[in-house]
């Protein structure tokens, strides 16, 4: 039987505010335990929450970016459950009236297909603290620094049919929130994490199968592996005559499998009700329009502009526009080099190669965009050849200075003096009698290919510094003159 997977995702994006969603405690990552947890975060008696306006603005930005309805009146609810890292005994969230209503994004797939994925809603809520289970023999340690950190929970429609579509969706949401500057997107620190709801059904069947949820997956690769594994597990189970049990599963990256978490008793009995400590959030058109004006250029728009303004291919424009820091870097290089295609080739080629092999992101590149642009400018104005440029690039990477400094220090300036080039060519021709004879004997239309040998010799003689265009031109003239 042919099976079809149905996937829906819940993404938790930590909002990049300075202070917490309901208190004035800081949100910086990595502080000493409980040094950023104030009386409100600890739920001490008599404390009251006050809502952070920046968190609201960030949520609205996201809503506008995905073309969603913005809740003119949204309400905080209490989601009740007991766990030691949740001091209040409830999580403040939004169930009935979320800040962001239905919207959508478009994803691109490897085969060039585009697909629209619905976003059901996105709502504001607070994060819980952290439990440490392995430090003490009989006790758990509780760190409440993270308690009260603002989260935007982004819930998709069950519109995805494969792990590839799911990953494309998560990457797109990731690109949007980082471009908006509302989330730092750091998955390894848990700033952006994903719950995957997966079910399977016979292809063509209308109703959904029973779904399982894999929680808190924090890398694109793990999302793909967890979903693929879960789809295969469910199909095997059903084909063997079993039934999928609705359950929360935990993805184990080491074993590359999902396993069942002990199902929490009454897990779904959260007894939501409106939080009496917080008033409804009411926003008007003026507020929304003011936020709209602050929106940066989004990845899709930038993609289209890169194709139109710089003449880049769909693929190149897609890669270079996907992330704001990469796109900004690229555009700075373009400005300095005044050649978009050359800039695209170098950013996606040499620079990416070096960044990847050193495990660095674009923001940690040892070569600034301006400096890379400076290097490319020297290719454009014929100071150096593309080949020498790679040598200069490596020196720049190793901190030996700007392109001009490296070119000067190593004497790499291209030889463009035609007298000097002619001298080198004459020398090569004089030494290569057999090859010259072959050239002369060859059919004129075969000679072009044979030119390569002489090119190589001249470039070698000049230590790569002769201008290849000039060499080619003069060499051809001289050899052809010999044939007449």
């Amino acid at each position, binding site marked *: 039987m042919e099976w079809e997977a149905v996937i829906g995702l819940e993404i938790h994006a930590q909002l990049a*505010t*300075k*202070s917490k969603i309901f*208190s*004035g*405690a*800081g949100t910086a990552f990595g502080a*000493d*335990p*409980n*040094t*950023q*947890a*104030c*009386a409100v975060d*600890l739920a*001490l008696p008599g404390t009251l929450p*006050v*809502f*952070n*306006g*920046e*968190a*609201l603005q960030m949520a609205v930005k996201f809503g506008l970016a995905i073309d969603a309805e913005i809740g003119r009146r949204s*309400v905080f609810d209490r989601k*009740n459950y*007991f*766990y*030691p890292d949740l001091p209040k005994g409830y999580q403040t969230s939004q169930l*009935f*009236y979320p800040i962001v209503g239905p919207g959508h994004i478009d994803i691109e797939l490897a085969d060039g297909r585009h697909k629209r994925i619905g976003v059901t809603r996105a709502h504001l809520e607070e994060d819980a603290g952290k*439990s*440490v*289970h392995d*430090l*003490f023999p*009989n*006790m*758990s*340690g*509780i*760190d*409440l620094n993270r308690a009260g950190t603002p989260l935007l929970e982004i819930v998709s429609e069950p519109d995805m049919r494969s792990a590839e579509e799911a990953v494309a969706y998560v990457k797109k949401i990731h690109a949007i929130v980082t471009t908006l500057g509302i989330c730092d997107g750091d998955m390894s620190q848990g700033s952006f994490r994903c719950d995957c709801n997966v079910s399977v059904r016979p292809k063509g069947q209308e109703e959904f199968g029973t779904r399982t949820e894999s929680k808190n997956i924090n890398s694109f690769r793990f999302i793909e592996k967890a979903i693929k594994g879960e789809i295969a597990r469910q199909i095997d189970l059903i084909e063997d005559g079993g039934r999928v049990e609705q359950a929360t599963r*935990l993805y184990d990256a080491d074993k590359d499998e999902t396993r069942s*978490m*002990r199902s*929490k*008793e*009454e897990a779904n*009995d959260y*007894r939501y009700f*409106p939080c*009496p400590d*917080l*008033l*409804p*959030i*009411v926003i008007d058109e003026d507020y929304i329009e003011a936020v709209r004006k602050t929106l940066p250029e989004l990845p899709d728009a930038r993609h289209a502009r890169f194709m139109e303004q710089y003449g880049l291919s769909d693929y190149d424009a897609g890669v270079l526009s996907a992330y704001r820091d990469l796109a900004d870097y690229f555009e700075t290089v373009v400005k300095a080099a005044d050649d978009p295609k050359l800039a695209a080739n170098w950013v996606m080629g040499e620079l990416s190669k070096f960044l990847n092999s050193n495990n660095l992101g674009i923001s940690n590149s040892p070569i600034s965009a301006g400096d890379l642009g400076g290097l490319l400018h020297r290719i454009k104005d014929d100071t150096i050849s593309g080949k020498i440029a790679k040598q200069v690039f490596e020196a720049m990477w190793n901190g030996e200075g700007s392109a001009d400094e490296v070119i000067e220090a190593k004497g790499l300036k291209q030889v463009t003096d035609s007298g000097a080039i002619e001298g080198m060519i004459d020398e090569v021709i004089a030494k290569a009698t057999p090859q010259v004879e072959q050239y002369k004997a060859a059919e004129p239309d075969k000679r072009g290919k044979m030119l390569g040998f002489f090119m190589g010799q001249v470039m070698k003689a000049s230590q790569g510094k002769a201008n290849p265009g000039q060499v080619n031109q003069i060499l051809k003239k001289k050899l052809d003159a010999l044939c007449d």
Partner: protein
Amino acid sequence: MSLDRSDVEKIAHLARLQIDEADIPEYAENLSNILDLVNQMQACDTAAIEPLAHPTEAVQRLRVDEVTESNQRDNLQSVAPMVEDGLFQVPKVIE
């Protein structure tokens, strides 16, 4: 609507309340009475009425995003029954 013994036990568990066996029938009756009142109110036609999120007409004020709290860990942990290495200690919980 009437709640039985197991309903009361479940509600008590969800709220992490320890209750006396002997008191369960009384709780069941009281809670059932409250639900009866709710059911009576269900008879009202509320189709045209917006659900109430808060009894006052006021709307939420917004706080400026600034860190205003300093580290008060020592003070705040002075009331905790057990603390080690800056962490609150609780009986072991593990999923």
